[in-house]
């Protein structure tokens, strides 16, 4: 083990304890650890993005690209220079055009992605369950497949209906539609709760593995420090 490795292990151990000190309360040690962390992360991300995006997309085509590539690189280059003016509050106005450009593309990507990537595939998948001619992984017989399919359909529909925003004026006796909505609401809540519960358990499992890993690290580190001391 080289000195660099030993120093690294000590640093990792110290930083782990500093972060864990947050369990007692917010304190300077925790602050120091996360400020180091934020700085390091930002540095890494910055270099990787420069290496993987800016150099190949903006610099290399200008130096060694064909005429067509150079022309194509000029527009993002210009917009990029304008965007850089956002660094200075005085010049920031020049950066409005590239920001508007980004927002326009972002809005379009969001809509396109939501319609073609979420809404349609999810609708299709829900309908496809009722194709009883092909069996799916977990259903051993058609009857069970149908029952599960119906539960999924009911769950999807009531969850979606739960979010209905509009409501009529409040009345003492709710109309039929309002009672129906209220019923949907209750059933939808059950499905939402189960989904959140499952996801929560999943996040917790991930966090627990992280905790086990960190505590193992601490125990191992202390063992490797304490055992030689005790044996000597």
């Amino acid at each position, binding site marked *: 083990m080289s000195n660099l490795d030993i120093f690294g292990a000590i640093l990792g151990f110290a930083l782990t304890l500093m972060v864990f000190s947050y369990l007692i309360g917010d304190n300077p040690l925790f602050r120091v650890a996360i400020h180091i962390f934020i700085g390091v992360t930002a540095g890494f991300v910055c270099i990787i993005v420069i290496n993987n995006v800016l150099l190949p997309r903006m610099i290399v085509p200008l130096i060694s690209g064909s005429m067509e590539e150079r022309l194509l690189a000029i527009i993002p280059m210009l917009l990029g220079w304008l965007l850089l003016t956002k660094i200075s509050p005085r010049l920031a106005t020049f950066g409005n055009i590239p920001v508007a450009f980004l927002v326009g593309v972002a809005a379009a990507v969001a809509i396109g992605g939501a319609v073609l990537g979420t809404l349609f595939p999810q609708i299709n998948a829900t309908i496809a369950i009722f194709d009883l001619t092909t069996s799916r992984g977990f259903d051993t017989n058609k009857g069970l497949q149908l029952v599960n399919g119906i539960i999924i359909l009911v769950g999807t529909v009531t969850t979606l209906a739960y979010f209905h925003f509009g409501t009529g004026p409040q009345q003492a006796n709710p109309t039929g539609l309002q009672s129906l909505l209220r019923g949907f609401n209750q059933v939808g809540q059950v499905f939402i709760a189960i989904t959140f519960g499952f996801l929560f*358990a999943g996040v917790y499992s991930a966090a627990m593995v992280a905790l086990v890993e960190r505590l193992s690290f601490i125990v191992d580190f202390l063992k490797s420090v304490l055992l030689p001391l005790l044996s000597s």
Partner: protein
Amino acid sequence: MAEINCPLCGKANPDDFEVCQYCQARLKPLLAPDSAEENSLPQDETGVEEPTSPAAAEIPEWLQELRQDEDSLELEPERSSDELAADISEATGDAGSIPTGTPDWIYEVEQETQRDFDHIEPPPPSPAEPGPEPAALPDWLESIRLGLHGTPGLASSQATEPVESTGPLAGLRGVLAADALISRSRGPATRPAKLRVSANQLVHIDLLRELVESEGKSQPLPQKPSISSEHILRWGIALAVCLAVVWSIIFPGQPAALPAFQEETAELNRLIEQLPDGGQVLVAFDYEPGEFAELDAAASAVIDHLMIQGAYLTLVSTTPLGPVLAERFIEELQPVHHYTAGVQYVNLGYIPGGTASLVMLTGNMPRALPYTIEGLAAWGSESQPVLPPLQGIQNVGDYDLVMVLVDDPDVARAWVEQVEPFISSSSPQGSLGMVISAQLEPIIRPYYDANPRQVHGFVAGLRGGASYARLNGREELVRSYWDSFGVGLFMAVLLMLVAGLMYSTYPLLTRPSKSDSEVKG
């Protein structure tokens, strides 16, 4: 025609004007004591008042003293009204009972609700001339205050009381009940526009304050002890969870069996087993560094299996730190296979644009990801041939297997929705496998259960990783976490059940006394 100087901006106005023609401030105070004496208002109302004014003789001695103090204060127009309040309170030795910049009942209500009003500055008076700052609250704040307190007492008193227009109280409602006071006042003959308070008015203010307090008083916040039950709860839980895990690490008991066969895991195992000799695999490292413990454990047996099969690996990532994670994974978790960058594997780094650009992988990959993370031309140049893992690859459909290691539901869905259709349409044996964080299971499983499958096999979290490790016998890493993991989860459930029940039923048991106080409040 005689002129009056505006108390706010100091400019001269004809004396029959009600409001200043420059700044719209009220020229004649609403709290004029006596109609007969109204005309004897001194001309120098701008703030500097002579102690020897004709009316001085009629003023009680204590008030003269007070006024002298005030006069000296009024010479410092830049002082805030709250500072004036503090000074005057000091001068009278009756802290908090003299209404100044802010009427004290508002002041006290504020104090009781622990709102530090000092931070809110009134808007500057419209003309730039020096003058005492009016205590007017901005409109928006006024409306919020009304809406917030929402107390009938406060609202109605404000509705019926006149708005004070001059001096430091300008803009506040109901400071002094002008009409009612006129007939009874035995105060000084002249009443300057500022901070003149008679004993009578004090009585009225006290009355009003009591009225308001009794109806509109916010619940005083209880003093927080430095160590509350919340702290003890947090510390207790932290201690219990950590101790349980540490105990199981230091004193491991009988090791628990790894979970057995899971269909989706076995399916992934089969896919890797079927890889041709020297098969090409695209591995995406799409997780955050924080998730490294779980994903390492879940994926190590899988990547190990790929390497045993001698697969060529292409590493990519849609998260900026993914490439570093990928490099670390290959070198530190799988050192026995001696995979070398540029020979058995190539790290193409970060996919510019992340998930939005995944679709680029289905097009021209050499154009989308031209360089390795070391900055070499991955797809060959005049001086060097195409790197072995990339030979014959033009797009993602050319890979024998695409393996995604992912912890984010949206990223996982993007791979399935955008890339999988292309894989399955371009080659019959191409497939998409996944190693996912446990939280993604309900989101990914439907794609596995779909017909045709959109995810052809997956490993979910430590449990899935353990199951996979059991299939190919690479258990070391998973084994080291598995038992402590179980202990930790059990402790968490126990705490949520026992502490959760105690914590949530405790207020029910002690409700009678609490609801009493709520009713009183």
